[in-house]
C-alpha cells in the first residue's frame, strides 16, 4: 500500500494552466471524463424535461416547438457529446497507453487538440441552443432540416467540428496501438479493451468524414440553396438518408464496441478467469467493425427503397447480431464457474448483458422488413435504441467509471452505496423503457409532445422509471465526488486484477511506469496452472 505519492500524474503541476496545456494522455482522459460527464448531466436534464411534458396528455409544461427543440438537444448532446466520445476519449485515452506499456499516445499534441476541438464544437452547438435551438431531431433529416426556420446551422457546424475531434482521437489510437506496444506485447496479447478501442477507431476514421461532408452539404443547402437534397430543386432527400446512415449505423457501433471492451475486462476481473475464447472476441470485434458498414439500409425500410435492397440490408444486419451473440456467449463462458465477486462494476456488467441481449434481439426483429413496417418511427424504436445504446453504453460507462476509479484517482468508493445505486439504475432503466416498447407496439409515434389519453398510464410508468434513474445518478455523483477526497486509499491494485493497466501505480506517475513492464503472459490470465500436454 503506497499512498498516492507526489509523483502521480495528478500532483505533477497543480495549476489550471498545467492541465490546459498538458500532453499527458491521462490528464487528457480525465478532462474528457469531466466534459462528457457534464454533457451527460445536461442531456439528462433535457430528458427529464421531455418525460415531464409527457406525464399528461395535452400541454403539460411546454409547447410543441419547445418539445421538438428539447428532444433535438437531448439527442444531439447524448449522441455526439456523450455516447460517442465518453468511453474512447475518456477511458481510452487514460488506459490504452497504460495497457500496452507505452509512455503516452503516438501524437500527444494532436491528442490535446482533440480536447479543444471537442470544446469548440460543443460550444458552437450550445450557442445554437441559445439562438433558439434546432427542431430536427439528432438525425437532421432533409428536406425538413434544410427548410425549418430554427437554428439548425450552429448545431450542424458544432457536430461537424466534434467529428474532427473524433477522427483525431481515432487516428491517434490506431497509430498508438500499431507502433507503441511494449516489446513482447504481440497483437494476440493485447487486452480486449485495447482491441475494442482499436476496432472503434477504424470505424471512426472511416465513417466520420462522410458524416462531416453530409452535414456540410446540409449547411450549404441552407445557406445558398444548393439543392442537393431538395426535391423541389431536382435533388433527392433519400441521398441524405443513405449518406447519413452510412455514418450513423456504424456510429452505433462506435458507441457499443468500446462498451464491449469494458465489459470484457470487467467480466474477467470479477470472475477471476481468463477471457473465454479470447480470439473469438477479437475476431467478432473486427467483424462488427466491418459488417457495420453494410447495414445502413435497415433504417430505410419505410423510405421506399427497393425490396431487394431491404432484403439485403436485413440479412446483413442479422450478421451483426451473430457477432454480438458470440461476445455474449464468451462473457457467459467467462462467468461460468468463475469465483465471482459481486462488486458494482460487475452489477453494471450484468445489466449491460441483459440490455444488449434484449435490445439486440428486438433489433433482429426490426431488421425483418414486415415487422419493421409496424414498429418504424414508433416508441418501440425509441425503446430499442435506448435499451441498446443507453443500456449498453451507459452501463459500460458506469462499469468503467467504478472499475477504474481507484486506478485514476487512487481512492476507493463506498462499495455498498455503489451496489445500491447500480441496482437502482438497472431497475430504473427497465422501468423507463419497457413501457416504451409497449407504447410503440400500440402505435404511439416517436417525437410527439401530445398523445391520446389511453396511452397515459404507460407514459406515467416511463416517467416514474426516469425519476428512479435520476436519483441513481445523483447518488453516484454524490459518493464519487466525496470519495475523490475522503475515500479510502486504494493501493495499486485494489481489485486484484490481472489487467495490464494495473501494473503501474494507482494513480500512475507522469510517464506511467517506473520500470519498463514485461509481458511474459497473455492478458487476463488468472488461472495459471499448467495444463499438461504432450511435448
Amino acid at each position: 500500500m503506497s499512498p498516492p505519492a507526489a509523483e502521480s500524474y495528478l500532483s505533477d503541476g497543480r495549476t489550471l494552466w498545467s492541465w490546459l496545456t498538458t500532453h499527458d494522455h491521462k490528464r487528457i482522459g480525465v478532462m474528457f471524463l469531466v466534459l462528457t460527464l457534464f454533457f451527460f448531466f445536461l442531456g439528462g436534464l433535457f430528458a427529464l424535461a421531455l418525460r415531464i411534458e409527457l406525464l399528461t396528455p395535452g400541454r403539460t409544461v411546454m409547447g410543441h416547438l419547445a418539445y421538438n427543440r428539447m428532444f433535438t438537444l437531448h439527442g444531439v448532446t447524448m449522441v455526439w457529446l456523450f455516447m460517442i466520445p465518453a468511453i474512447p476519449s475518456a477511458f481510452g485515452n487514460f488506459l490504452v497507453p497504460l495497457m500496452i506499456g507505452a509512455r503516452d499516445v503516438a501524437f500527444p499534441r494532436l491528442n490535446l487538440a482533440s480536447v479543444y476541438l471537442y470544446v469548440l464544437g460543443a460550444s458552437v452547438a450550445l450557442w445554437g441552443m441559445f439562438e433558439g435551438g434546432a427542431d430536427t431531431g439528432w438525425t437532421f433529416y432533409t428536406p425538413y432540416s434544410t427548410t425549418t426556420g430554427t437554428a439548425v446551422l450552429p448545431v450542424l457546424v458544432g457536430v461537424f467540428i466534434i467529428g474532427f475531434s473524433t477522427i483525431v482521437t481515432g487516428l491517434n489510437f490506431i497509430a498508438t496501438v500499431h507502433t507503441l506496444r511494449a516489446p513482447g506485447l504481440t497483437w494476440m496479447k493485447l487486452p480486449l479493451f485495447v482491441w475494442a478501442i482499436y476496432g472503434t477507431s477504424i470505424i471512426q476514421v472511416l465513417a466520420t468524414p462522410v458524416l462531416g461532408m453530409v452535414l456540410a452539404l446540409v449547411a450549404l443547402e441552407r445557406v445558398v440553396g444548393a439543392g442537393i437534397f431538395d426535391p423541389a430543386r431536382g435533388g433527392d432527400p433519400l441521398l441524405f438518408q443513405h449518406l447519413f446512415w452510412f455514418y450513423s449505423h456504424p456510429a452505433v457501433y462506435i458507441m457499443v464496441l468500446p462498451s464491449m471492451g469494458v465489459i470484457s475486462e470487467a467480466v474477467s476481473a470479477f470472475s477471476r478467469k481468463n477471457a473465454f475464447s479470447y480470439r473469438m472476441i477479437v475476431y467478432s470485434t473486427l467483424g462488427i467493425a466491418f459488417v457495420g458498414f453494410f447495414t445502413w439500409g435497415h433504417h430505410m425500410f419505410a423510405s421506399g427503397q427497393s425490396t431487394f435492397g431491404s432484403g439485403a440490408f436485413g440479412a446483413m444486419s442479422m450478421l451483426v447480431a451473430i457477432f454480438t451473440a458470440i461476445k455474449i456467449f464468451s462473457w457467459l463462458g467467462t462467468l461460468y464457474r468463475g469465483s465471482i465477486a459481486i462488486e458494482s462494476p460487475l452489477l453494471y456488467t450484468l445489466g449491460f448483458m441483459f440490455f444488449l441481449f434484449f435490445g439486440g434481439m428486438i433489433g433482429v426483429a426490426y431488421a425483418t422488413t414486415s415487422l419493421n413496417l409496424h414498429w418504424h418511427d414508433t416508441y418501440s424504436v425509441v425503446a430499442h435504441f435506448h435499451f441498446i445504446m443507453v443500456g449498453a453504453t451507459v452501463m459500460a460507462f458506469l462499469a468503467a467509471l467504478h472499475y477504474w476509479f481507484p486506478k485514476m484517482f487512487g481512492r476507493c468508493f463506498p462499495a455498498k452505496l455503489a451496489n445500491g445505486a447500480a441496482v437502482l439504475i438497472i431497475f430504473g432503466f427497465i422501468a423507463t423503457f419497457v413501457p416504451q416498447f409497449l407504447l410503440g407496439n400500440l402505435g404511439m409515434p416517436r417525437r410527439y409532445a401530445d398523445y391520446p389519453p389511453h396511452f397515459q398510464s404507460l407514459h406515467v410508468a416511463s416517467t416514474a422509471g426516469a425519476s428512479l434513474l435520476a436519483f441513481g445518478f445523483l447518488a453516484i455523483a454524490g459518493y464519487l465526488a466525496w470519495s475523490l477526497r475522503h475515500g479510502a486509499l486504494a493501493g495499486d491494485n485494489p481489485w486484484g486484477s490481472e489487467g495490464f493497466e494495473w501494473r503501474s501505480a494507482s494513480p500512475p506517475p507522469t510517464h506511467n511506469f517506473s520500470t519498463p513492464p514485461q509481458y511474459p503472459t497473455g492478458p487476463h490470465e488468472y488461472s495459471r496452472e499448467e495444463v499438461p500436454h504432450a511435448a
Partner: protein
Amino acid sequence: MPPEAVTEHWGSEDARKQAAYLGMWVFIATEVLLFAALFTAYGVYRSVYPEAFRAAQLTMEVGLGTLNTFLLVTSSILVALGVHAVRGNRPGLGGALLLSAALLGVVFLAVKGVEYAHHVKEGGLPGDAYRFTEVPRVGASLFFTLYYLLTGVHALHVTVGVGVLTVLGVRSAAGTFSAAYATPVELGGMYWHLVDVVWLFVYPILYLS
C-alpha cells in the same frame, strides 16, 4: 534534428517515423472518404439527369482544366524529386524543388479563379443563384453545385498544400532536414500526391464527357 524529448518518448527515430507514416496513411484514408461522399452524390445525380449533366459538361472549359491537370502532375513530380533530394542529403535543392511545386500550386489556384470568374459571368452558379440559360435548370444546376463543391473542396486542399510545401521548402533550404531526418518532407509530399490524385478523378468526371 527532431527534439530530444520527442525521440525519447519513442525509443528510436525509426519507431517515430513509422507512427508518423501510419498516421498520415490513416489521414489520407479519411480524406478519400470525405471526397467519396461528393463522388457518390455526383454518380447518383449523373444517373438521374444524364442529358443535363452531359450538356452542362460541354460548357466546361476543357482547356483550362487540362492546363490545371498538367500543372498539378508536374508539381507532383517536382515534390517527388524534392523528397528524393532531401533524402540524398541535398536539402538546398530539395527546398528549391518544393518551393517551385508550391508555385505551380498557386498558378493552379489562379487558373481556377479565372474559370470561376467565367462561370459567374455566364450565370453558372450553384443552387438558387443559377442564371445560366444555355443549359436547362433542372439537373444542370445540380451539376454546377457539385462542380463548385468538388473543385472548391479540392482547391481548399491545394491551398493548405501550398502552405505546407512553402514551410517545408523554406525549412529545407535553411538546412532543417537531411537524410537522417526527412519525415516531415516525406509526409508533406504524401499529402501533395493525395491532392494530385484526387484531382485526377475530379478532372475527367467534370470536364471530359
